[in-house]
């Protein structure tokens, strides 16, 4: 199967780049990031707050199959419609430090567009830990326990 989403993670660097070309015009791709009700659908999360502007912020709340709530949040540094979003991203109640994200949206044609997501982590070690997290997919139990443990650390 064709891989539309590419990830560039150079060994020993504290950053990654995620790129994806969409079979959508730029305006629709950007709308999927702008409209809270649409973000909620594709991210599979509840959008508590999404204040799309410079100095704005967002809060997402995801409920896992066990009923545990996980909060993902960040602040927005730059919001240029159909062009650029600069923001932080944090998994609250975990030992993981926030990351800085640069999202760039560009048109490829009338009907196609591209997203480039440049993510910067506090350290190489943290980046590698975060990249390994999706091993958790399908083992929510371990993930929930991770949350439990992390919250006890606070």
């Amino acid at each position, binding site marked *: 199967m064709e891989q539309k*989403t590419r990830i560039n993670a150079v060994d020993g660097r504290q950053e990654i780049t995620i790129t994806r070309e969409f079979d959508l015009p730029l305006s629709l791709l950007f709308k999927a990031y702008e409209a809270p009700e649409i973000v909620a659908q*594709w991210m599979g999360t509840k959008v508590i707050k999404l204040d799309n502007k410079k100095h704005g912020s967002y809060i997402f709340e995801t409920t896992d199959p066990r009923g545990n709530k996980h909060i993902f949040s960040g602040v927005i540094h730059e919001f240029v419609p159909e062009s650029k979003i600069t923001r932080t991203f944090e998994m609250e109640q975990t030992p993981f430090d926030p990351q800085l994200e640069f999202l760039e949206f560009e048109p490829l044609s009338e009907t196609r567009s591209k997203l480039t997501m440049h993510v910067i982590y506090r350290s190489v070690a943290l980046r590698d830990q975060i990249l390994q997290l*999706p091993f958790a997919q399908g*083992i929510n139990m371990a*993930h929930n326990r991770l949350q439990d443990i992390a919250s006890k650390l606070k």
Partner: protein
Amino acid sequence: MNLRRDVFQAIADPTRRGILLLVAAQSMTAGAIASNFDTARPTVSKHLQILTECELLKQEQNGREVYYHLNPQKMKEIADFIEPFRTMWEDRFNKLEDIMKNYKQNDSK
């Protein structure tokens, strides 16, 4: 012995992936790791042994306790260790694309 194959076999098991996730966040004792799983303690010990043998986990003596921590070097050797992360984004973006294609249709009505 084919170590590389063993590493992939090691991460093919969901409990062992769960263990790797746990210790990715912090070093833990065998007891603390076992308390996160419904599996019997000896079974978890066996998993820890396999993960240690293929060097995905390292043991560290701290006083009377033995702590397990992730060996990031070994994790990197897994050529496609990034694949689950990529798949997660691929799934999300596919969903985004599907939703917006429908949105476009609804919009043009």
